[in-house]
């Protein structure tokens, strides 16, 4: 049973980490807590779902469709909301409140088009194999989610370190003003980040929807709630921290169910988070002075 719970924790942690990657990226570069990230995540799931159902596309093509939709959503998000607010030199909480409005718009539009009821991917489209080893079971899909979280983290970190655009992004995260003085296209990079973060959210939406079998207009809301915890636990804007934070929350939840009782699960997880923040005011894995965008 312990081994199974360990596997459960890894798989749940992977889910949280995958969601958190895009969320933390926006915070790291734009300095915005994007409360519409859950809605973008939902948009990804719906795009892929309808690509599969209506256009009869294979799953891979559907993921591509989700990337296109959510990427476009990210572009619009920056163009219509973040950029005008930057131009007006808005106080730092203003964009966050605007993203609440956007989340309402997205989820109510999707509800208007597709209804409020839960939907799921057709069984034919799902990878359904389960791996079983001495009573311990994990599905292929869970494994893929965990692997993808690690791969994406690796790619992101490599890009930030090794590529020109990555270095520019890190510079931007440290100081937009300095970056602009150095001739970096600040506005373009902000937009690029918003697109990248949103499409990461979209991919997460598809995979997690495949796993939960529950696609509904407000599916992003509970994820957002957990995602905030994960990202802050890992140190805001920290890519590796998002992954570690995700696994930390996954383990905290699973093992409180295993050893304390499922009614106390969220109290234990969030109580732990509260205590950690008091002991380490910049997150479990965060550094006080330096932001790793």
């Amino acid at each position, binding site marked *: 049973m312990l081994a199974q719970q360990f596997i459960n924790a890894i798989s*749940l942690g992977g889910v949280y980490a995958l969601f958190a990657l895009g969320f933390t990226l926006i915070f790291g570069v734009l300095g915005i807590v994007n409360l519409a990230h859950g809605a973008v995540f939902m948009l990804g799931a719906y795009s892929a779902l309808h690509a599969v159902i209506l256009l009869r596309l294979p799953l891979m093509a559907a993921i591509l469709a989700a990337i296109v939709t959510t990427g476009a959503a990210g572009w619009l998000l920056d163009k219509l909301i973040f950029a005008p607010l930057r131009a007006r030199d808005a106080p730092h909480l203003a964009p966050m409140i605007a993203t609440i409005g956007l989340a309402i718009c997205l989820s109510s539009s999707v509800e208007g088009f597709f209804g*409020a009821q839960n939907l799921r991917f057709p069984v034919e489209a799902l990878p359904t194999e389960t791996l079983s080893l001495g009573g311990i079971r994990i*599905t292929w899909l869970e494994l893929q989610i965990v692997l993808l979280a690690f791969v994406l983290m690796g790619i992101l970190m490599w890009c930030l370190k090794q590529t020109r655009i990555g270095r520019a992004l890190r510079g931007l995260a440290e100081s937009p003003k300095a970056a602009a003085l150095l001739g970096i296209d600040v506005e373009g990079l902000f937009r690029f980040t918003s697109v990248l973060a949103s499409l990461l959210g979209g991919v997460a939406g598809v995979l997690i929807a495949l796993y939960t079998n529950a696609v509904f207009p407000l599916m992003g809301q509970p994820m957002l709630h957990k995602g905030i915890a994960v990202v802050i636990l890992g140190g805001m804007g920290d890519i590796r921290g998002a992954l570690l934070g995700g696994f930390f929350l996954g383990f905290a939840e699973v093992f409180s*169910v295993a050893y304390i009782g499922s009614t106390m699960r969220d109290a234990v997880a969030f109580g732990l988070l509260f205590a950690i923040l008091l002991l380490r005011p910049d997150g479990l894995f965060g550094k006080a002075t330096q932001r790793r965008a």
Partner: protein
Amino acid sequence: MNLKLNILSAILGISFLYGNAVAADIKIGIAAALTGNAAQYGLPIRQGLELAAAEINVRGGVNGNRLELIIEDEQGKKEEGINVFKKLIFQNKVMMLFGPTLSNSAQASDPVAQTAKVVVFGTSNTADGITSIGDYVFRNSVTERDILPITLKIAAQNTGLKKVAVIYGNDDIFTKSGYDNFKKALRDLKIPVATTETFAKGDVSFKPQLTNIRASNPDAVVLSALVAEGAPIMVQARQLGITLPFIGGNGMNSPRVFELAKGNSDNLWVGSPWSVESPAPENKRFIAAYLKAHGTMPDQFAAQAYDAMYIAAQALKTIKLTGKLETDRKALRDALPATQWNGATGPFKFRRIVGRNGKPAGYDAVQTAIVMVTQANRYVIKN
């Protein structure tokens, strides 16, 4: 879909104009969750009520009076529920109210109707204590207290279960209320509980709880959930190799379980007064009419709403309308308790319940349970 309905009601409106040009309208208020998360339950309720009202109107209304529905969205929120109730009662001056969709909203808004002395008829509020608010509160939604013991008994006879594990949503009034009734029924039937687990709305993974359940070695899993979480729970249980029967409350009585848990939906036991498979002619007629009007299969929410409108119409038929709102509202309240009906959910009558203060209060439903088990994407009736 909406357009179709609009055309339908337009036609009905015209036929009414030529039919009984002198009769008055009876205004009926409907408060349902039409946007937000609870809209998945509110929409079928609205469609069930509209279908029944359209049928009644096309047959000449109630004693020649046409039923006029005034529909408001209460979003499944308690303050919205109160606001909508007040608007319908004081501004639209409705004769009676249907709704609201969720038990939470009912706990907050039904007292408004009680104080204003307007009948409020719940079609989907199952939580204990709602009808104890007062003598103007009625419901035809299943009270699980009567149904669950029968479900458990028949499931036990068929599967030979000796002990069960329980999993329920502890943050939701519907699933928690269902659990309380399961707990009582299990105690009365002396079925030991190996472990009790909870989940929260919107959970991604139920595997930690299911792993605990698997380790406790039960013969069946008792599940108090709505289909939105219940179906994923069944899927994840099968992924963990738990092939045990599931026993659910009426939240799991939905044809959608076959879609949401496709390939893993077998061996789920549920009990309810309504079954999509019930061969009663009234039910067959209802399903055919609903399918024609809305293009989808009805669920239990739609069936109960449909019957509720007929029950109210039946009571309205027996009273003589004076045109004075207070008198008519009171007359309707006095006529309702004795009303009986045989509709899509089978034979129906009201039963008065005792309120919190020990005095008689509102009215619950008395109905017969149909116990079913899922097999190859169908519900099979077992009693």
